[in-house]
């Protein structure tokens, strides 16, 4: 029997996914504004920030209402709680994209430090993680979520690699310190984006299996 609150649940899910697509787009545009030295792209990211933040507030409002008005149980309850957390992660992803865009604008004032080799690979991985995480939410796909979890280490490695490489550049030539430093920050932002995608993947596992897979080293008894 279909219950009328299912309509509200579906509305909530749609809004979250729309927010996800906005966040994904923001990351893509921000990263390419760095890689392609595109100022307009960076500005576009900054302009679209509000939309994501508004959605976060709206999604949270709806979550509160759903929990108060319908005594959700089991998978519905986990789903709504997870949406509340995913909401936050998406908003942070948006924030990180904005940070990248702002960094991009600052980098543009300087000549390129070096050809970008690792950065495109890292950004592609981060984007893929976000995309996979959102698809895992839509399809409630635990395997896809596991794939995202597995990629987290790789992203961390990329960040370390970029950091080491740019450090040598900065030590060798002091004029590139400013843009190189910004690039390190961009790498850091991308790594954070990867972390948030990982959080989303953990929430998917929670929804589907009821298992809280965060912090595997913590003793759960």
């Amino acid at each position, binding site marked *: *029997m*279909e*219950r*009328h*609150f299912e*309509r*509200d649940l579906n*509305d909530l899910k*749609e*809004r979250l*996914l*729309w927010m*996800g*697509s906005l966040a*994904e*787009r923001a990351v*893509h*545009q921000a990263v*390419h*504004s760095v890689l*392609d030295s*595109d100022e*307009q*792209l960076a500005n576009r990211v900054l302009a679209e920030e509000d939309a994501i933040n508004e959605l976060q507030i709206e999604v949270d409002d*709806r979550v*509160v*209402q759903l929990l*108060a*008005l*319908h*005594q959700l149980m089991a998978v519905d309850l986990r789903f709504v709680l997870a949406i509340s957390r995913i909401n936050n992660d998406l908003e942070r992803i948006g924030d990180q994209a904005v940070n990248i865009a702002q960094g991009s604008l600052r980098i543009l004032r300087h000549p390129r430090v070096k050809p970008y080799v690792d950065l495109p690979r890292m950004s592609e991985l981060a984007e893929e993680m976000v*995309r996979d995480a*959102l*698809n895992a939410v*839509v*399809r409630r796909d635990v395997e896809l979520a596991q794939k995202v979890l597995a990629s987290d280490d790789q992203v961390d490695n990329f960040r370390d690699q970029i950091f080491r490489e740019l450090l040598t550049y900065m030590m060798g030539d002091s004029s590139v310190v400013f843009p190189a430093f910004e690039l390190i920050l961009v790498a850091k932002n991308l790594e954070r984006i990867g972390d948030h995608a990982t959080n989303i993947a953990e929430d998917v596992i929670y929804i589907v299996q009821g298992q809280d897979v965060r912090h595997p080293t913590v003793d759960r008894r």
Partner: protein
Amino acid sequence: MHASARPAVSVKITPPVTTPSSREAQAPLVMRMTVDKVNFFYGPKQVLFDIDLNIAASKVTSLIGPSGCGKSTLLRTLNRMHETVRSSRLEGQILIDNQNILAEDVTALRRRVGMVFQRPNPFPKSIFENVAYGLRINGTKLSMSDAVEKSLRHAALWDEVKDQLHKSAYELSGGQQQRLCIARALAVEPEVLLLDEPCSALDPISTAKIEELLVQLRDLCTIVIVTHNMQQAARVSDFTAFLLTGQLIEFSPTPQLFTTPSDARTEAYITGRFG
């Protein structure tokens, strides 16, 4: 000029339709019934104090509160059922579409404002005759069997009883009997349907069926429901009124009352910290 974002594989790129959540108030609201400064007495004892309430058309309004707060009493004034008790006295006005119900003929009023009671009370007649009862009194434009079928469909009971219309109503289960009573009340096409704790005698599945029914019935008529189960009020109603010892403490849209009530007493009640 860089190409715009690559669309994600299965995530939408068009914004969802901005429908408000299914329970947000869409302006403007028409008021179907108005309770205006009503004070109610059983003999010398005052039971309702200065009640002012607006019932919005095509919405579900619920009355909640602890036992003895007067919610059933208030409900029964809306179709003047309180007059069956000799010592009852009503001061103030109750309007339906801006006409005073106290000035109107009571049987005509009760055609416009129907009632479903706490325990199912079908008549000792067949299922068909139960639904047809009100039609025989008040007349109908359709043929009797068409009108009965229409009502039973509206009450989501037609499929279960269409082959047994001649059977006694008492052979139905509790949940079916209550839906029969709803069909009986709907048969005369009332503008307002009053329900006094309609699910309190029923099991959870029957309760769920009736709750879904009520949400759909909004298109047909205005609904006022008294319930001691506030979760039910939360699930089903658009507006909620909280009563305490005969006073109206708070009256708000349901999402608002259950998330951020404005009165501390309301909050104490809905968080279960009462008494």
